[in-house]
């Protein structure tokens, strides 16, 4: 595994090639599966659809300091779809916020890695989330506060497509546009699957792009597993002069493991140990 000096993370748009990002993402997916199987619970499917974007944020885009999680000049990331925190925990550990061994504390009674992110228990978590529809509002508040303080830090927030059914998401969407929060980038992890099935069957959020455009946002649509597209979109968002940006990322739930891809059943269920072995093999782990 490639090692990064903590200094590496302190500026935006770092030199890193796609192959490296892909290699990190593969490790993160393995972590997600090991953590959830070890906890015998958790949400692997959505964590794997979100992985590439979170990896690009922490290893390419965001300004942050793993040795000083409260560094004032850092960019902020809010995981509004808090249930996919195994992806974030793994990325934080691999950046150096805490030791990799800690990942096995996920969801354990004496551990610091809660079932949903807790800002006081886990270094690097900006705000506690888990109940859907709230994180994006907190991200709006962070963007307002940072701008008021004259800070050049940016706020990134990931929401789920099922989450977009919550009315409070649209309250926040309206507010971000009203206050011209061009320092806010929201990424919609559009894997089109929620607990009860496909998003368009449970309660359609489509056409999603048009909705955000009508709310006054800068909209970008990408393949959420193509690092070139993810990076281009994150860079373009920064150029927006007064609108907040939404990146609608088309993703695949369970991405990376053939028998998990596009299956709603892996939303909130861990792989049993025998399937974990299969999955890790697919991800290139030498068993």
């Amino acid at each position, binding site marked *: 595994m490639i090692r990064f000096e903590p200094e590496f993370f302190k500026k935006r748009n770092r030199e890193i090639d796609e192959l490296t990002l892909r290699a990190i993402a593969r490790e993160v997916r393995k972590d997600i599966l090991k953590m959830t199987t070890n906890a015998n619970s958790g949400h692997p499917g959505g964590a794997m659809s979100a992985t590439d974007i979170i990896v690009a944020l922490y290893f390419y885009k965001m300004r942050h300091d793993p040795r000083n999680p409260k560094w004032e000049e850092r960019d902020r990331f809010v995981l509004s779809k808090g249930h996919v925190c195994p992806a974030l925990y793994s990325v934080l550990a691999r950046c150096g916020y805490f030791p990799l061994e800690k990942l096995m504390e996920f969801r354990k009674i004496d551990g610091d890695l809660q079932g949903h992110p807790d800002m006081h228990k886990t270094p690097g978590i900006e*705000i506690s989330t888990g109940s859907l529809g709230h994180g994006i*509002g907190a991200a*709006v*508040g962070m963007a307002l*506060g940072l701008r*008021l*303080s004259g800070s050049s830090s940016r706020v990134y927030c990931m929401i789920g497509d099922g989450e977009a059914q919550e*009315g*409070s998401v649209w309250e*926040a969407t309206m507010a971000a546009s009203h206050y011209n929060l061009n320092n806010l980038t929201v990424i919609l992890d559009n894997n089109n699957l929620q607990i009860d099935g496909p998003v368009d069957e449970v309660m359609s959020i489509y056409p999603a792009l048009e909705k955000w455009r009508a709310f006054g946002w800068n909209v970008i649509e990408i393949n959420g597993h193509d690092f070139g597209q993810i990076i281009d979109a994150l860079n373009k968002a920064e150029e927006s002069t007064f609108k907040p940006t939404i990146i609608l990322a088309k993703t695949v739930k369970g991405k990376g493991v053939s028998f998990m891809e596009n299956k709603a059943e892996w939303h909130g269920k861990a792989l049993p140990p025998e399937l974990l072995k299969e999955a890790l093999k697919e991800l290139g782990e030498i068993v």
Partner: protein
Amino acid sequence: MERVSLRDAYGDTLVELGEKDERIVVLDADLSGSTKTAKFAKRFPERFFNMGIAEINMMNTAAGLATTGKIPFVSTFAIFGTGRAWEAVRQTICYPNLNVKIVCTHGGITVGEDGATHQALEDVANMRNIPNMKVVVPADDVETKEIIRNVAYADGPFYVRLTREKFPRIFQEGKVKFEVGKGHVLREGEDVTIIANGVMTSFALLAAELLEREGIYAEVIHMAWVKPIDAELIVKSAKKTRAVITAEEHSIIGGLGSAVAEVLVENFPVPMERLGTPDVFGRSGKGWELLHYFKLDEKGIIEKVKKVLERKGR
């Protein structure tokens, strides 16, 4: 007694705080004229955020602002701030223990003509049940000012319950020290303890006067802080009088009455009665008419005192 506006006191104090501290920011949900945050908005437009009629997002946004070192005051009517937005308050403000001050006006029955939909009779209960949240119900403008100044620099989330109606002034400016979680003995007595907050404290003082004419000596405690509650003072007074009643402009379920009952049952059980709205919704009418309609006045207090004294076996 002179009647004074608690919400005007709030608006004025916000401006005073804003002058001294750039970290103070204010959020409102299209009710700034009524909650009096408009005073702050006019003076500091860049630090005032009207969030529109969207209370859930207002709470989440306030939480986000707090993470950047701001001190957000959030205002709307009590029913919306503690009801509609309850889950945002729980998840995004209280669970992370963020420095957000929720100050709602239009608590209680004295909202008046708008009727049941706008009268918050459950707000104290709604806020009291969330870990990390502190809850206070001031009686007049003097106390409101002191509480607002205090909560601005006390850590974590607070709920301050204010009202639309003007209330009699009880405290003299600069004469009383307001500490988080401390009750005030306003009148000493041996026969019965009356514990009240909000507008009911002034009725408690009036009732005590009237009771004295009948030879009943009531101790009156103003208990603005419902959480943390001054358990020590409650037990001390109960040990002396051996009979307690509570009076609040709120449902008898979950508010001051419940909080006092919890303290007494676990520490020093004595006969106790609760005065408040009896698990019912409000209705339209003038604020003061409604108080009398629901017996939230000196007569209601005296009735409860007589009942508790009978149980005490006097």
